[in-house]
C-alpha cells in the first residue's frame, strides 16, 4: 500500500525527524490559507501515488500567496499518469545547499532491510544507480540486531564530514529505520534529504510504501489509505478479498493464483486475444468470492467473454463451481463464460456445474483459445 508524501512526513515528524512546516489541502481556499499561515515562499506539491509528478508539472514553487493560489488551482484536479490530483501539500520552500538520497528497502537477497545513502541525491538517482553504482553506499541491517548508532554514524560519514551534519544525519537514519520497521514498510525514502545554508538537515520529500501483509497490525496506517487515489473497481475487488487490476482488453479472466493468472493472460495475448484484467481469487476459496469476481468483471462493458481457469490446490473446485452457478443465476450474464476447473475436488465441481451448462476445456491452452474464439463471435 502506498501513502502520500504528506502522510509519510507525518510519520517522520512523529518520531522527531525534521521536515519543513506544511499541511495538505483539498481546495484552493485551504491551500491559500496554509500558505498564508506559513507566511514564506512555499512549494505546492501534488499528492498522487505515482512517480515523476515533478516532470509532469505537479510540483511548483510559489514566491507569494498569489502564486500559491494560481498553482493550487492548476494542480488540484490535474491528471498525472491517469491519476487525479485531489490533494496538494503546501509546504515551506527551503533553501538548499546539498541534496542527499536516503532510502531503506526490504531486500529479497540478503533478507534484510538495506539502507542506501548517496551524495548524488535528487531526481536522477536512478541514473546514478545505473551508471555509477559506487556512489551509492549500502548497509544491510541484520533484522535480529536492528540498526545500531555506530552503523548509522558510519553511513552518515560516507556522505558528510562535518560532525554537526554527521550527527543530524545519524539521528535521521536511526529514526527512519524505526519508521521502516515499526510501520511494516517495504520502502521508506527521502529524496532529497537536504542541507540548508545554516547547516540544518531536513527531509523535504518523503515516500513510504507499506508491506500489505503487515497491514492487519497497522490500523493507523490502514486509515491513511486514500481511496480517492485508487481505481474504484480495484477497491471493490480488495474488499471482496480479490486482487484485481483493470486492463484495456475484452477477455475477462478469473484465475486462482497470481502466477497462473499471469500465465493465462500471457497465453491470451499469445493466441491473439486481449485480457480485460488481472484477477486472482486467492488461496482459500469460497463461493462468495467467485460471485464477487464475476460481478466486477461483468461490470466492465468492454468484456466480451469470461475465462475462468482454476487449478485447485488449497482452492477447491467445488467451491468455485458453486460460486459460478450462483453468479450465473443471479447476474444472468449475456456474454459467453468458458470454464476450466481442475485439481482439488474436480469431480464434485463437475457435478455442480451440470446445473448450468457452460462451455469447458480440459487444458490451459484450449480454454484460452475457446475464450478468444467466443469473444470474437460475441464481438461481431
Amino acid at each position, binding site marked *: 500500500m502506498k501513502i502520500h508524501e504528506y502522510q509519510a512526513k507525518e510519520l517522520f515528524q512523529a518520531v522527531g525527524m525534521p521536515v519543513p512546516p506544511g499541511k495538505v489541502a483539498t481546495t484552493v481556499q485551504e491551500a491559500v490559507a496554509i500558505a498564508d499561515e506559513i507566511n514564506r515562499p512555499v512549494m505546492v506539491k501534488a499528492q498522487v501515488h505515482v512517480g515523476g509528478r515533478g516532470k509532469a508539472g505537479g510540483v511548483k514553487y510559489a514566491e507569494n500567496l498569489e502564486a500559491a493560489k494560481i498553482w493550487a488551482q492548476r494542480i488540484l484536479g490535474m491528471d498525472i499518469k491517469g491519476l487525479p490530483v485531489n490533494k496538494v501539500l503546501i509546504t515551506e520552500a527551503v533553501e538548499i545547499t546539498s541534496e542527499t538520497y536516503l532510502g531503506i528497502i*526490504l531486500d529479497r537477497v540478503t533478507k*534484510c532491510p538495506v539502507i542506501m545513502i548517496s551524495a548524488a541525491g535528487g531526481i536522477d538517482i536512478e541514473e546514478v544507480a545505473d551508471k555509477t553504482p559506487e556512489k551509492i553506499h549500502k548497509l544491510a541491517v541484520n533484522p535480529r540486531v536492528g540498526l545500531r548508532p555506530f552503523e548509522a554514524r558510519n553511513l552518515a560519514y560516507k556522505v558528510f564530514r562535518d560532525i554537526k551534519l554527521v550527527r543530524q544525519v545519524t539521528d535521521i537514519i536511526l529514526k527512519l529505520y524505526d519508521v521502516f520497521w515499526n510501520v511494516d514498510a517495504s520502502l521508506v525514502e527521502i529524496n532529497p534529504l537536504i542541507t540548508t545554508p545554516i547547516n540544518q538537515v531536513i527531509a523535504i520529500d518523503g515516500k513510504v510504501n507499506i508491506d500489505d501483509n503487515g497491514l492487519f497490525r497497522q490500523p493507523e496506517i490502514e486509515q491513511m489509505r486514500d481511496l480517492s487515489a485508487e481505481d474504484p473497481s480495484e477497491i471493490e475487488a480488495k474488499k471482496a478479498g480479490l486482487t484485481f*487490476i483493470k486492463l484495456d482488453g475484452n477477455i475477462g479472466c478469473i484465475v486462482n493464483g497470481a502466477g*497462473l493468472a499471469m500465465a493465462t493472460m500471457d497465453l491470451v495475448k499469445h493466441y491473439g486475444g486481449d485480457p480485460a484484467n488481472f484477477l486472482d481469487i486467492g488461496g482459500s476459496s469460497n463461493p462468495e468470492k467467485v460471485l464477487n469476481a464475476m460481478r466486477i468483471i461483468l461490470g466492465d462493458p468492454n468484456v466480451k467473454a469470461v475465462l475462468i481457469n482454476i487449478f485447485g*490446490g488449497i482452492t477447491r473446485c467445488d467451491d468455485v463451481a458453486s460460486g459460478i452457478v450462483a453468479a450465473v443465476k443471479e447476474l444472468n450474464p449475456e456474454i459467453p463464460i468458458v470454464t476450466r476447473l481442475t485439481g482439488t475436488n474436480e469431480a464434485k465441481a463437475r457435478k455442480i456445474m451440470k446445473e448450468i451448462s457452460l462451455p469447458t476445456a480440459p487444458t490451459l491452452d484450449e480454454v484460452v483459445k475457446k475464450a478468444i474464439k467466443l469473444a470474437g463471435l460475441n464481438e461481431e
Partner: protein
Amino acid sequence: MAIFINKKTKLLVQGITGRDGSFHAKEMKKYGTNVVAGVTPGKGGTKVAGIPVFNNVADAVAKTKANTSVIYVPPAFASDSIYEAVDAGIKTVICITEGVPANDMMKIYHYIKHRGVRLIGPNCPGLISPELSKVGIIPGNICKRGNIGVVSRSGTLTYEVIFALTSGGMGQSTCIGIGGDQIIGTNFIDVLTAFENDRSTKGVVMIGEIGGSDEEDAAMFVKKKMTKPVVGFIAGRTAPPGKRMGHAGAIISGSSGTAADKVKALNKAGIPVATSPLELPALMTEKLKEMKAKKGTVKKTKTKRSTKAKKK
C-alpha cells in the same frame, strides 16, 4: 530418492483443526504421507482423521518423533508457529500460510540460518515427492513418479506445469513451490543445488515470474554450477508495468524484473523458456537428448556445447 521429503518424513501439521489444516491433513494422509501428529492449542487429546492432536509442538515431537512440519495457521500466528517448530527440533518446516508480514520473515530467516533448518515458504503450495510423500497442497493426482525436478515461485502455475509434464509422460522426482513472497526460506538456488545432488533427478523445470532478480541469479547458478539440464517458464510477459518499489527497487536489485529480461537471462544461461506449460515436456526431452549426446563426446565442454546446440 527425491529431495527434502521422502518415505522417512514424519509429518506434523500445525493448525490441523482449521478449515485448510484439517482438509489437507486428510488429503496428505490419503496420499500416503506419514502424518504422525497435529497441533492446535486447546485441542490437545483430540484426533483429526485418526491423527493425534497436541497442544504444542514440543509435546507432539516428544511423543511422535515428527521430523517435518507443515503450517496452516493464520498469518498473524505463522511466524510464531515456525519458531515453535524450530525450537522443538524440527529441521524441515513448510509454511503454506499466505500473508505473513515480511518483517516477521526477515527475523525468522536470520533465526533459522545458523540452526540447520530448511524452511520452505511462506505463501507456497509445499512440495511433493510423487508416491513417496506429499507435504502441502499440491494435488497428488496430477503427479507421477519420475526423474524431473520442478521448482516454482508460483502456486497454481506449478500445478499447471506438473499437469503438463505428467500429460506429456514425464514423471517427477520432487515438485516444490518455494513461494512468491519477498522473503522466503528456500530460493531457486537452494533447490537447484539439491536437485543437482539428487540421484533420482535427471532434469529440472524452473518456473519464474516477474519481479525481483531471483530468476537471473538462478540462471547464473545454472550456467556456472549445474550439469543437469534446466528448462524454464516465466509468467507475466504481458503484465502491466504494475507497482514499482520507488527508486530503491531498481537500485537494490540492479534488475528491471520484467519477463523479457528474465527470459533473456535464462536463454543466455542455456535455459530454453517455454511459451505455454504444454511445451515443457518437449523442451526437456530435447535438452536431455542433447546432454546424452554430449556425454558421448567430450565431457569438459558441456555447458558451452549445450548453448551452441540451442542456437542452431
